[in-house]
């Protein structure tokens, strides 16, 4: 089976061959000994690969079941099951399972068998195995189960290794000796001892041990405090003859820590990707000087490890020097300046132009490269002239400038320009200042991490209280700039950081000023404080502090700190919700958008059920549909669905806020007594609102439902006549004054004037929704709506229903009554409000003749904006925002605000204003 054969053979041939193989496999049992020799041909050629393909499981193979087990017990369990099988086989009653596998997946083992009962029997009575997690592995995934990557790697004596866990995690160490045939290693490394610990109270000591990692420092017995002397002695390290310092359970030789560790779990060999750095080696060798000073030890007695480090250091620096020399010699090869072994380089000349590879050596004017592309996979290295290669920097890579004017700046490569006169340059957008700088590629390198921390990591800072966290805004050569949760920037060294909190930040949730849940990645606009009006996305968050990121900001890498309560959720999530609600409103046919608005408001309100089986019960609305609300009753542990019309809102989520008024009591009693139509006016307060609202948005046709009801409607009259005699007159008047346009009502007193405003604005269609309710508890617009067949009016509900506007006092002019707003007067003249007087009248400059007239709020109405007009939002969440109306979509309008952000606002909230220009 060569590769060529495979290509030329038809699918049928392959199938037949595989089948044959399976058959022959079964026949081979008898001659098993000889068989494997047949198959064997040498090592790992491609032939072996192909035949491994033929071993993929088929339906005739046993199935594989997966089990969850206690992590760490996988191997033990497999042995246990094996033992069980062997024991049962000895009794002559074998279990029908064929294999048990513990691969590299943590907390899982697999059992292979033809029969499920056999598997169940096999796991019966086995501890640490969760039988309920049993699952069949699909046949296609069976090979994946068997995939393991060799993780443990033997180390040799004098290898450089890195500690992988514990106190010394990440530190460089040297293998001094191997034990247990390579399973155990004796290593030496630079200790991290905190001599000050002994003098601290136990609690603080524990805290300190947990949070602070002492710096690498050679053991020096003169630094011990007197109280520590008793835990010090001289003794031999087990298995050696050398006399060591023994201190607090550890051995120290020549200042180095000597420790026995298990290979594979405690230490890992240094890979080519992470070789010992010059810095680390220097720290390893610095011993020399210090030792000679205090120990009087000559060069001959120098510690072996130190020597090894020194020699490697020499070798490395020699290598670097040679690299430098090579480049000095070849002055013309400016583009290759600064090449370091291990760099990814690109060939820029010759046959292999464009090829990328890793630099493996530099010798004089030639460099050796290991190609990275697959088609040259067999070639281990290719030699080039130094001038034929240059460092490869990919666009989008995060780099740190290592030399020159911008040394230590980090940033993202936005462009690589090879044509510029200065040679090969990269444009780097810096993290900290968001400036674009141009750097010669030779002097930048791909390191943007320091001690495992990266730009924009949320880190815990040590010192200054326990809760101080910050976000890294700059990664320097040896320190970070961190903006902390108070918005203060300071420089910290890696040792001062107590770990990352990125994950916690990702999971965190906070509430904005409107009570919306916000989390990382959301975009918010800032409602107050120095950053007011800005929109930014949440990069990290810690408790109620948000670390916001704005691309246009140049300071602190675009990060600034704001309290979550000072922000409003912006963007998709909210407007999406809004749209859904509005859509629901539309779905009800002529359902008024304002009804849709109150859908929103219903949830969380305290309501009283007005009729039906749950009449009189108080509860909280937990859910709302266009027709029903779900009420969680206060007195029963129960949620009931009630038709919207049958509930009356009497308070917010904190309980009933409005006292039961006389009117309500009476209305209830009247409903009991009278029943039927006559009583209904007092049940459910929404309908009239809807009825009244409908015409506002639809044009003429929509008047019908509410219009016939004015004044003469018998249906509401009985109710009114029963208990509202005193106000009836006013009702009537307001009904009369309800002709959906600027009324001829010239009442002078404030309240009636407002009443007329109500009617007026409602008719004009650009009323702020507050107006119908602004006349407090009077029956301004009691109307019957034909859709519902009943007239329901309830004063108590009025103000709470229009929750958005409850705050607007009845004596206030509408929100849009401010300067620069276009208005239409009763005489159909259009003008612009120029000035608002203290008596709530305004002077309006008429467009026609530029003359000024003085008007009261009730005498004018808003002008409907058209596309591309400047508009002011007079209601809803974005109240107060000015912007350009981009387009109108049904009842929604899309506008572009000053920040060039788009907002979706309900159209009837918009007032046309004069543009600034």
């Amino acid at each position, binding site marked *: 089976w060569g590769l060529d054969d495979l290509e030329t053979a038809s699918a049928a041939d392959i199938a037949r061959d595989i089948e044959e193989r399976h058959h022959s496999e079964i026949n081979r049992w008898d001659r098993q000994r000889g068989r494997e020799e047949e198959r064997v041909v040498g090592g790992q050629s491609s032939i072996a690969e192909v035949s491994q393909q033929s071993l993929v499981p088929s339906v005739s193979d046993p199935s594989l079941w997966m089990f969850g087990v206690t992590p760490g017990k996988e191997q033990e369990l497999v042995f246990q099951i094996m033992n069980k099988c062997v024991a049962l086989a000895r009794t002559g009653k074998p279990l029908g399972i*064929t294999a048990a596998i513990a691969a590299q997946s943590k907390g899982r083992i697999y059992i292979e068998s033809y029969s499920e009962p056999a598997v169940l029997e096999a796991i019966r009575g086995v501890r640490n195995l969760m039988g309920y997690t049993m699952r069949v592995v699909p046949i296609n995934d069976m090979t994946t189960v068997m995939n393991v990557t060799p993780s443990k790697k033997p180390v040799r004596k004098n290898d450089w290794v890195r500690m992988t866990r514990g106190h010394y995690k990440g530190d460089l160490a040297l293998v001094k000796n191997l034990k247990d045939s390579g399973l155990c290693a004796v290593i030496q490394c630079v200790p991290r001892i905190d001599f000050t610990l002994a003098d601290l109270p136990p609690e603080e000591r524990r805290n300190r041990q947990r949070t602070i990692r002492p710096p690498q420092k050679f053991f020096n017995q003169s630094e011990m405090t007197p109280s520590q002397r008793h835990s010090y002695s001289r003794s031999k390290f087990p298995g050696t003859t050398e006399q060591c310092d023994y201190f607090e359970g550890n051995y120290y030789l020549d200042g180095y820590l000597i420790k026995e560790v298990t290979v594979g779990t405690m230490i890992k060999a240094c890979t080519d990707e992470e070789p010992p750095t010059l810095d680390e080696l220097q720290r390893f060798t610095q011993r020399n000087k210090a030792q000679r000073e205090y120990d009087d030890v000559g060069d001959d007695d120098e510690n072996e490890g130190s020597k090894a480090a020194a020699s490697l250091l020499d070798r490395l620096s020699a290598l670097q020097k040679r690299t430098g020399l090579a480049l000095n010699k070849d002055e013309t090869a400016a583009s290759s300046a600064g090449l370091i072994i291990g760099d990814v380089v690109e060939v820029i000349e010759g046959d292999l132009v464009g090829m990328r590879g890793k630099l493996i050596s530099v010798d004089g004017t030639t460099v050796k490269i290991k190609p990275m592309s697959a088609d040259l996979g067999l070639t281990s290295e290719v030699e080039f002239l130094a001038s034929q290669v240059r460092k490869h920097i990919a666009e989008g890579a995060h780099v740190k400038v290592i030399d020159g004017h911008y040394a230590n700046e980090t940033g993202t490569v936005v462009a690589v320009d090879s044509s510029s006169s200065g040679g090969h340059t990269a444009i780097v957008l810096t993290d900290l200042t968001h400036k674009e700088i141009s750097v010669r590629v030779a002097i930048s390198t791909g390191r943007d991490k320091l001690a495992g921390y990266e730009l924009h990591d949320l880190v815990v800072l040590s010192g200054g209280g326990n809760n101080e966290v910050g976000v890294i805004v700059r990664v320097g050569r040896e320190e970070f700039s961190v903006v902390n949760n108070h918005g203060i920037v300071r420089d910290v060294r890696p040792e001062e950081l107590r770990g990352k909190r990125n994950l916690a930040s990702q999971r965190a949730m906070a509430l904005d000023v409107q009570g919306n849940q916000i989390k990382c990645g959301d975009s918010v606009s800032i409602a107050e404080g120095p950053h007011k009006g800005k929109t930014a996305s949440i990069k990290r968050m810690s408790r109620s502090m948000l670390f916001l990121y704005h691309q246009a900001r140049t300071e602190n890498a675009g990060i600034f700190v704001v309290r979550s309560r000072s922000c409003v959720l912006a963007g998709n999530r909210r407007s999406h919700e809004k749209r859904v609600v509005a859509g629901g409103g539309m779905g009800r046919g002529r359902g008024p958008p304002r009804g849709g608005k109150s859908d929103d408001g219903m949830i969380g309100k305290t309501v009283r059920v007005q009729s039906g089986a749950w009449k009189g019960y108080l509860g909280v609305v937990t859910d709302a549909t266009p027709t029903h609300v779900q009420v969680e009753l206060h007195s029963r542990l129960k949620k009931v669905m009630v038709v919207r019309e049958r509930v009356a809102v009497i308070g917010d989520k904190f309980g009933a806020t409005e006292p039961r008024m006389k009117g309500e009591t009476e209305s209830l009693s009247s409903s009991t007594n009278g029943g039927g139509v006559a009583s209904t006016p007092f049940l459910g307060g929404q309908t009239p609102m809807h009825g009244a609202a409908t015409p506002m948005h639809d044009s003429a046709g929509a008047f019908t439902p509410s219009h016939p009801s004015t004044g003469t409607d018998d249906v509401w009259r009985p109710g009114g006549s029963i208990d509202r005699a005193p106000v009836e007159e006013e009702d009537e008047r307001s009904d009369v004054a309800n002709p959906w346009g600027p009324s001829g009502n010239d009442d002078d007193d404030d309240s009636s004037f407002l009443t007329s405003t109500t009617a007026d604005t409602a008719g004009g269609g650009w009323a702020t929704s507050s107006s119908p309710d602004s006349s407090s508890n009077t029956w301004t617009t009691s109307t019957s709506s034909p859709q519902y067949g009943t007239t329901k009016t309830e004063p108590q509900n009025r103000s709470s229903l229009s929750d958005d506007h409850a705050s607007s006092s009845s004596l206030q002019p509408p929100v849009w009554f401010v300067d620069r707003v276009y208005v239409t007067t009763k005489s159909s003249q259009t003008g612009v409000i120029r000035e608002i007087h203290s008596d709530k009248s305004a002077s309006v400059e008429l467009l026609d003749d530029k003359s000024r007239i003085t008007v009261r709020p009730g005498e004018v109405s808003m002008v409907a904006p058209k596309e591309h007009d400047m508009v002011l939002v007079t209601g809803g969440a974005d109240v107060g925002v000015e912007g350009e109306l981009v387009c109108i979509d049904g009842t929604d309008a899309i506008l572009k605000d000053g920040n060039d952000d788009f907002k979706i606002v309900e159209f009837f909230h918009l007032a046309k204003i004069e543009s600034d220009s």
Partner: protein
Amino acid sequence: MEEDSEGEGVEVPVAVAELAQANVPTSLRGLRCCKRCGLIKTYDQFHNEGCENCPFLVMEDSANIERCTSAFFDGQAAIMDPRESWAAKWLRVDAYVPGVYAISVTGQFPREIEEQLENMGRRWRCRPPPK
């Protein structure tokens, strides 16, 4: 021993007889695996019994055990029935005795043993550590 079990044949199926003979690692520590077949046992078990699959790798003195077994392996597969098991087939241990096998074996035979095995036409499962 396999010859024995084949002789008994009729009463007990071969596979069961073989399984009854299987050597399971007696401890969780000091485990090693045969570099040729991947069979996992403790050092002592190798010392006392050698490797059932590879009798030609004489494991009497400790130096030989060091050379022919590896402490570096990943994944364990307890194979109860090598002939039927797909896992055994996949690991190419289906011709061996029941036992616990390593899924991947890291290590290298000394050159002379490698040559010896090549001359015998036998393959081995251990692979040098990835660089």
